[in-house]
């Protein structure tokens, strides 16, 4: 796919339009990545040039959701990085289990695979009934998909392999019903999940949690915005709570770094110590 050449000034114009017209601020995102996403959208939606995309976005507020959907990267899978989930099972859930009530926040949950994986872990640890999982994302269309709990059956092989590698001992297919080419996850897994939009750039804390999971979202932010989001998490996390990031993301060099210790040196999970 041949990318269109878009100039930095054009990206800047578009991002300013978004702030002024819609109140969405993407100026703290990593530039190279966002530029690529915009070029890609010009091609994908067959705009003759950047100018037509900009015009559409300015003049058609119904196009905004589509823009957000494609500008953000929503790639995800169940039990992504199985060893991460193994560490949750072995080292984090036993501690959470000692609480009478467990609150978990998945920030940037995309289409929901991550939060359903967590619900499965909690159910297997027999603590799902006393847990509430808040799953948020900036992208309303991704949340719509999450709400259905329905995924292509073709993905189940990969998800099931991940599940087994994460230490899952059950038959993975017991968690969903297959119909035609789709797999629908059990409603009992979704009962304790609350889905809602939340923008890490502009929305603030809405509860206090024992575990916050935000994976593969901070990589799209520049350092300043990363720091802002980390402060929001810090603010929303109980003392001795856990913060779990993506496999290439860091707490260490941020302004909250001194308050956290990493659980082990392989997985990106930190415990808040003060």
């Amino acid at each position, binding site marked *: 796919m041949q990318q269109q050449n878009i100039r930095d000034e054009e990206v800047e114009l578009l991002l300013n339009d978004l702030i002024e017209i819609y109140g969405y601020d993407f100026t703290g995102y*990593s*530039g*190279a990545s966002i530029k*690529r996403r915009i070029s890609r959208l010009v091609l994908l939606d067959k705009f003759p040039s950047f100018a037509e995309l900009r015009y559409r976005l300015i003049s058609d507020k119904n196009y905004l959701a589509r823009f957000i959907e494609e500008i953000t*990267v929503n*790639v995800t899978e169940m039990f992504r990085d199985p060893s991460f989930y193994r560490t949750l099972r072995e080292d984090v859930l036993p501690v959470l289990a000692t609480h009478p009530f467990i609150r978990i926040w998945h920030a940037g949950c995309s289409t929901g695979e991550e939060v359903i994986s967590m619900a499965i872990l909690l159910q297997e640890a027999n603590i799902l009934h006393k847990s509430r999982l808040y799953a948020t994302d900036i992208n309303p269309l991704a949340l719509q998909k999450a709400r259905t709990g329905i995924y292509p059956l073709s993905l189940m092989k990969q998800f099931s392999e991940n599940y087994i590698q994460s230490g899952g001992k059950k038959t993975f297919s017991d968690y969903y019903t297959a119909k035609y080419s789709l797999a629908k996850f059990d409603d009992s897994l979704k009962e304790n999940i609350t889905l809602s939009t939340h923008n890490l750039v502009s929305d603030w804390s809405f509860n206090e949690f024992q575990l916050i999971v935000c994976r593969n979202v901070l*990589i799209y932010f520049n350092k300043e915005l*990363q720091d802002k989001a980390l402060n929001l998490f810090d603010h929303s996390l109980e003392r001795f709570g856990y913060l779990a990031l993506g496999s*290439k*993301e860091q707490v260490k060099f941020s302004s909250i770094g001194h308050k956290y210790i990493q659980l082990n040196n392989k997985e990106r999970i930190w415990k808040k110590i003060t």
Partner: protein
Amino acid sequence: MEENNMTAHYDLVLIGGSAGSIQIILKALQPLLPGNFAVVIVLHRKPSSDSTLIDIFGGKTALRVKEADEKERIQPATVYIAPADYHLLIEKDGSFSLDDSEKVNFSRPSIDITFESAAEVYGSAAVAILLSGASIDGIEGLQKIKTRGGLCIVQDPDTAEVDFLPRQALLSIRPDHIARPDEIGRILNGLNRKPA
């Protein structure tokens, strides 16, 4: 060869390849002297083999070898390896960013993505090398490097374990060098600025 004049200087060397490239990269890195450029390696491979690549290249060259961390500033005399399962992009301020978007040419990391974003930032100060490989990933990126005035090197297909990529590249690009494995390190050392 004409473009490669005495005043040109290079800050970034990009190496892209897939199947059968590891030995070639080792050969290219071995004779390298720490100089003014950084090296970025984008290699198609199975996820989860990151530490192995660092083990393979580390200690085999006078340059520091590490995985490219997101938001890390690129430093000279360092070899950066693109982590498995993420695309590696280069920002205007000379730092890396990572992106887990859709695969490109069935690959993540994609050579095209890294080469293209490096071309935008480094322009004529970039060198790009395409090695052995079984897909077309890297060709568009190499074109972009060329358009922006960077130096292009393609491995001599006769010496490639999988010659598909270099052969396809040569159909659409006229590189500055078509190099055998043992020539690459020498060419790179020649690009290092002489101390004043």
